[in-house]
């Protein structure tokens, strides 16, 4: 099978003594055309993984290959030719654009870096890209503070798209947006995916986004992937790992008839801060935890075709 992107035993440790394990042994494979959703709570290392894959940071250990080429040991200069195929959409859309530039100039600069075209062709290309993300081309004369949050995120997507990349990393693309705009942006991501044949890595903590955009999903907890599913239909019913189950049970239902969250027993306690845990990283929150969980770290095992879980008890 052909993989667009593959990571093997990726590790990233922070701190002088490398005590903070942001990523611990992450192996992932993304097929072409099969977008992956990466879910996890804050601090689980999902953004770090995105930054390492996009070569904004170097891993402590491990291999990354993109389009059959190893990229983790490339210098910035060598990576430049691949940068065109791999773009990032960041969370804070307002922070992406220089406030003193107009939107058009910001986007043009990206294009100028990689393609030599005439001034008119540049303008045409920018107009066309802005239209494809549902923006009026005249908005290119505006500055970033003259755009609304939704417009700004669209411009951000246009910036990522103008080079026609194959692979786009979306780091929380909708979490800073209003509820009513979120769906529009996700729809846009879907449209573009089909139009230009892009594969996404969607990093999010909002689970509902994933099945909407992605075809595969990986759930992270404390720097490790605890569950991987090859299929995003009815994820909630398919997940097995206790953490994934908790995650899915916590989604607000938006339906007052089957309220579950607030009626549950309220027995969760917060105990010691920042304790270092041996064995499975989840045992202190796990209801079914047994002796083996406290000793050994579970491997990511394939239990059904296309479904991997890291848990001793399955």
């Amino acid at each position, binding site marked *: 099978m052909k993989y667009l992107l593959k990571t093997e035993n990726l590790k990233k440790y922070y701190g002088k003594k490398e005590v903070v394990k942001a990523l611990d042994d992450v192996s992932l494979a993304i097929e072409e055309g099969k977008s992956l959703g990466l879910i996890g*709570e*804050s*601090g689980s290392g999902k953004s770090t993984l995105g930054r390492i894959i996009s070569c904004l940071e170097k891993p402590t250990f491990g291999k990354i290959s993109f389009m059959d080429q190893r990229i983790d040991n490339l210098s910035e200069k060598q990576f430049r030719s691949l940068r065109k195929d791999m773009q990032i959409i960041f969370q804070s859309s307002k922070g992406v654009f220089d406030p003193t530039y107009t939107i058009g100039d910001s986007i043009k600069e990206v294009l100028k870096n990689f393609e030599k075209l005439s001034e008119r062709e540049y303008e045409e290309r920018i107009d066309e890209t802005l239209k494809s993300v549902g923006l009026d081309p005249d908005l290119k004369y505006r500055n970033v503070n003259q755009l609304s*949050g939704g417009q700004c995120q669209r411009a951000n997507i246009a910036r990522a798209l103008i080079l026609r990349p194959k692979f786009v990393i979306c780091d929380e693309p909708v979490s800073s947006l*209003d*509820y*009513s*705009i*979120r*769906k*529009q942006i*996700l729809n846009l991501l879907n449209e573009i995916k089909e139009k230009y044949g892009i594969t996404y890595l969607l990093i999010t*903590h*909002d*689970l*509902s*986004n994933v099945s*909407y955009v992605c075809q595969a999903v990986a759930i992270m907890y404390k720097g490790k992937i605890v569950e991987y599913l090859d299929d995003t239909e009815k994820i909630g019913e398919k997940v097995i790992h206790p953490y994934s189950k*908790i*995650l899915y*049970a*916590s*989604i*607000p*239902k*938006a*339906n*007052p*008839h089957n*309220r*579950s*969250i*607030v009626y*549950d027993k*309220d027995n*969760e*306690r*917060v*105990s*010691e*801060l920042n304790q270092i845990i041996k064995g499975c990283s989840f045992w202190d929150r796990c209801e079914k935890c047994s002796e083996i969980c406290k000793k050994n770290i579970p491997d990511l095992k394939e239990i059904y075709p296309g479904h991997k879980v890291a848990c001793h008890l399955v």
Partner: protein
Amino acid sequence: MDSQQKKDRPKKIVVKNLSIDFDCEQGKIHAVKNVSFEILKGSITALVGESGSGKSVTSMSLMGLLDSNGKVTGGNVFWEKNDLLKMKPKKRMALNGNLFGMIFQDPMTSLDPLFSIETQMVEGIRYHSRCSKKEAYEKAVKNLFDMGFDEPEKLMKKRPFELSGGMCQRVMIAMMIALEPQFLIADEPTTALDVTVQKQILKKIYRICHEKNVGVLFITHDLGVVGEIADKVYIMQKGEIVDKGNAFDIFDRPNHSYTKKLIASIIN
């Protein structure tokens, strides 16, 4: 019999035709126009709207915390025959904490990073209720324990940046509840948090509301959360309340086109 019934009737805050303007360089901005709603004790009232719809400004005016360029141009906020908006500022501020408690969106910035949790909680409790330091400390410990912390004494020695966002939000809620307010205003209390933590915080707010008979004004843009905990829902758009009803009616039979649009934008 009649007087008995009157006694049993739940107490409430009544907001009537509230209007708020802001003075800006470009002229006056009508942030809130003719807004009326009620907050009942022992139930959760949700105020829903997108950013810029005026929901936070409304809550700030209830607390008397409007920015200096903001002005209430009309309307009343009644609490037991008193109009809060016509009170003298000093008297008004004395009500904060005892009548209203507030939880803000960003727990990390509501706490001062320079001081330990203990200092901040004891200071807050002593500011609003006359008691000794020891009593305040005990109150703080008890309330932190109720919020799910196993070792409140240890936690009190920490500073806000040593805690996670969810823990900070719990501390904020514990601080509010220690003052025993009759009403709690929660301005997007879970927007900055993860779903698993959000669930725990929602549970806490729900429990406080029903066990301690506290009226909650829950401000949010997330209809999912509204569906989980709200009793009564008001939907705001561009400074006006466009739709209201109990939670079941809003979700089952949305009347207004904006409500329908909001419900349609839920991703399942």
